[in-house]
Each structure stands twice: as C-alpha cells, then as structure tokens.
C-alpha cells in the first residue's frame, strides 16, 4: 500500500498512479531502469573482456564487437559497461554522502535558526562563491587522482547547494503549527527533526537526490575527460571520449559510443528528477 499520508490525503491514489502522472517521470524511470540493467547485466550479456587487447584495432561495429573496438583492440561495448558502472558508482556514492551531510546541516540550520543558521549560511555562501570545477581540478592535480579523492571533491563542491535547498524546505515546514506544538511539549529537537520535519520534506529530498546524481555524473565525466578521474587501464566514460578523439575521424564510434552513454545516463536522472518534481507538485 502506498505511504499512508499519500492515501489519506489524496483518496485512493496509489504509487502506480503517482508514477504515471507525469511524462518526464515515466521517461526518467524507464531510462534509469534501462541504465541500471545495462550496468548490472551488460557485462554478462556481452560476454567479452573489457581489458583484453587484440590485434583487431579500431574495427567498425560488427557482429562480434557490437560497438567496435578501440585503438588497442579492446571491445568498446564491454568497456562502456564497466566505465558506466564505475561512473555510476562514484556518482551514487558521492550523492549518498552529500545528501546525508546536506540534510544534517540543512535541517539543523533551518530548525534551530538564528545563530546556527546564520553561520551555516555564511559558510555556504563562501563555498558557493568559489567555482567548483576549478576547485576540483586544483585539488585533484595537487593530491593526485584516486577514487576517494574524487568522491571527496565531488561532495565538497556540491554539498553547499544541497544544504541550501534542504534548509529552505526545513524553514517552510518548521513554521507549521504541529512543529510548534512539539516544541511546546518539549520534545527533543532532534526527535522533532526526525519525526516531523524530515518525513514532510521527503519529496523535495528525493528530487534533490536525483538532481544530485545527474550533477555528480556529469562532473565525474568531465574530470575523467581531463584525466583526473578513474585512472587507466580501468575504463571510464569521460576518458574514453578523450582517448577516442585522436581516432575519431576514422573510428567515430570510439567517441560517439561513450559520449552517448554519458548523455543518456545524465538525461535519465535529469528526467527522473524533473518528473518527480512535477508529479509531486501536481499532487498537492
């Protein structure tokens, strides 16, 4: 059964009806599911070793190599699956941590207000006034690229934005009388945040999470395009585009294939986020 508040408030609308209520949402769900299937089962379906080099260099797509081979004979499709997997992994991991951090800070700042809020917002303002990609590149160039650094950099550059969004929602919800009633009763502030505020902003949080995944994915591919992401020989989508550029006139698939996967992956989550936002707005 759907979430209780949902049924109670809107009558008999179930989860399925909700998911069908907006075109973007449907598209987003289909694309995301397809992407997930691709990443999880693609390797098994294709059955070729992504790291195995061969003398069939820069071959056009064929029956054996559905998307052709790259400059050292590796199967492009198999590499795509692996590359997509690692990009998605990094993006989702970074998003999860960013959301937890952003929610913790955002709800606390919004709920306690006054000094806590002022300090938090000033820090957020400072972070937001510094160009994020630049920071990412600088730090990665200095310390050296590695997955933990990559994830950390992604988190640091986007968390302030999440804090802002979460705080705005918290302020809206926190003003409602039932929160005041809990305050009067002397309920522990953290319990108030957990029981009253968070559940009532979960729509916003979910939308923000999907937007964040799309963003992290995009940034991760830019960084790996510059050679600062997942290091070779492990495949990464952005780097595949960068590599493929040298050969693109004679073997365009080496660039088109990874690039298209990137676009589709980012678009999947973007549609998902926009769709959820629209569907939630329709519901109220």
């Amino acid at each position: 059964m759907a979430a209780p508040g949902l049924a109670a408030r809107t009558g008999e609308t179930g989860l399925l009806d909700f998911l069908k209520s907006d075109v973007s949402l449907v598209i987003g769900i289909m694309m995301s599911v397809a992407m997930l299937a691709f990443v999880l089962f693609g390797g098994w379906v294709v059955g070729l070793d992504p790291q195995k080099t061969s003398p069939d260099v820069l071959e056009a797509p064929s029956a054996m190599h559905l998307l052709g081979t790259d400059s050292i004979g590796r199967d492009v499709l198999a590499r795509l699956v692996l590359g997509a997997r690692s990009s998605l992994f990094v993006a989702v991991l970074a998003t999860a941590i960013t959301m937890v951090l952003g929610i913790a800070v955002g709800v606390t700042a919004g709920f306690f207000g006054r000094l806590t809020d002022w300090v938090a917002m000033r820090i957020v303002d400072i972070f937001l006034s510094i160009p994020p990609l630049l920071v990412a590149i600088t730090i990665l160039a200095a310390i050296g690229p590695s997955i933990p650094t990559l994830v950390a950099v992604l988190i640091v550059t986007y968390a302030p934005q999440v804090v802002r969004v979460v705080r705005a929602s918290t302020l809206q919800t926190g003003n409602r009388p039932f929160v005041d009633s809990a305050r009067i009763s002397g309920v522990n502030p953290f319990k108030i945040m957990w029981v009253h505020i968070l559940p009532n902003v979960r729509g916003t949080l979910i939308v923000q999470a999907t937007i964040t995944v799309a963003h992290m994915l995009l940034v991760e591919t830019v960084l790996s395009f510059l050679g600062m992401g997942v290091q070779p020989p492990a495949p990464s989508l952005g780097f595949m585009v960068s590599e493929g550029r040298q050969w693109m006139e004679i073997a365009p698939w080496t660039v088109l294939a990874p690039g298209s996967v990137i676009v589709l992956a980012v678009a999947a989550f973007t549609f998902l986020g926009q769709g959820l936002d629209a569907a939630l707005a329709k519901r109220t």
Partner: protein
Amino acid sequence: MIRYMLGRLAVLPLSLLVVSILTFSFLHLVPGDPVDALGGENLSADEQAQLRREMGLDQPLPVQFFYWLGHVVQGDLGKSIRTNRPVLDEVLGRLSTSVELAVLSIVMALFIGIVGGAIATRWRGTWVDRAIMAAATLGMSIPNYFAATLFVLAISLYLPDFGVVSYAPLSKGLFANVKSLFFPALSLAILSGATFCRYVRGATEDIIRNADFIRTARSKGASESRILFRHIVPNSLVPLATVAGLQLAYLIGGAVVIESIFALPGLGQLLLAAIAQRDYPIIQGCVLLKATTFVIINLIVDLLYPFLDPRVQLVRGGK
C-alpha cells in the same frame, strides 16, 4: 536593503580569503618540497637555500601565507617555471580570449534559451511545448566536451573547407573573431542554453498561472503573440538574469575543457598545460584569477538582483 548589500559585501573578503588560502596551500599540498616543485633541482645547493629563504620556507605557514599574499597584492605572482616570464603577464595575456569566448557563448545561450522558451510558451500544452522541454532536458545532459567533440567531428567530415579555424583575436576584426569562436561558444551554449530554456519556460508558466492581466489583455482582443512578447517573456527574464550572470562569471575564468579542445589561447588552456607541465606558479595564478573574477561577478549579480523586480517569483527548478 542596505543591510542586504552590506551582508553580501561582507562575504566578499572571506571568499577571497578562502580562495587565496586554497591557492596558497595548493603548492604545499603537492608532495615534496615547494622548491623542488619550482624546479629547484636544477639549482645549486646555495641557490636552493637562497630560494628557500626568499620564499620564507623556514617560517611558520601563516607567515609564509602573508608573504605570499603581500606579493600577490603587489602584482607579483611569481614566474612561470617554463617560460620564466612573470605569471601576471602570462595570465593577463590570455584573459581577453577567455572573456570573448564567455561573452559569445552567453549571448548564444541566451538566444537559444529565450527563443526556445518563448516558442514553448506560445504553444504551451501542445506537443511543441513538450518536445522543446524534452530537448532542453537532453541538452542539459550533454557535457560540453562531448558537444565540442561532435562539432569537431562534424566539421571535419562535412565541412572540411570551413575547418576548425584557428583563433583570431578581436584585433583582426570582429567577424574573424566570431568565426573562430563560433563552435567553441556553441559547445558551451548548448548546456547553458538548455538550462536557460527551462528557466524561461518555468518563469512564464508561473506568470501565466498567477497573472490576471493576461485575461484582461486577451479580453481586449490582443493577439497571443502580442501578449507573449509584450508582457510575459520580459517578466520571465528576471530570474534568468541571475542565472546567466552566474554562468558568465564561471566562464570568464576560462572554460578549461573547451579551450583545450579547440586550441584557444585562453586561461583554461593555460591552466591545463600548466598542470601537465607542473608549472605551479602558473597554476596558482590561473586559479587565483579565475576564482577572484568568479567571486566578484557573483557578488555583482547578487547586488543587482533586488533591483530587478523583487516581486517576480523564483522559478521552480531554479533550486
């Protein structure tokens, strides 16, 4: 109002401070001694020691920071390891290219965004509207390096005569300049333009839903287009202005990836080359300049915002 502006201004020195700390500590984040990083192995032991003293490396970090800051404020950002020219000269020399690219791409993006948004609004609710919005979402998902790569590919395959024109600065004429920057700017403009398009459409939707004056105008017999262009679209530009401003702020510091793909002599390319060559003073200079311009332009946008009509609601999706 004044309070708001003062509040914004107060953040400025803090942001600049954080930027300078970031830039400064960069050199110290690199494994190894900064002197080595600066190419010190080529110097004799005496020269190394002297360099160390000059840089104040025997002093505690905060003191070093203020030394460095002092130099920076006077315009001395050190010398490039590769060319031995002052960093400031190198960096400023590249600034105009990046600015030209930034301005051109914002203009294109605004065009795409406003026209797309206006058309979608005109046929709101129909397949045209939905198609444009879907295209915009797709456009937002195209990383600019991929768009750039596609353009280069398309040009080489279908327009070999056009070629990827090498960069022509303004001094050689506006047309030549724009021609050389056309595709780079377009690569950047696709992502921004798509975002702007959604913004405009969202803003027009909010306006249409909430405004009675549209009904009044219609009842007076004004045509759809007239209403659209006279009233709705101009009002929707307000939230767009802030977003566009921010984008401009970001691009002025050099669109790192695009410049490298199209071999444009801008700040971004300088930065990448410096990273590859470990030319740390240049890296510091680029980062400092880019971050500073970003902070300042950001501030200007923030300060201007209340002067634009504050009654216009923020666009959903403009989170």
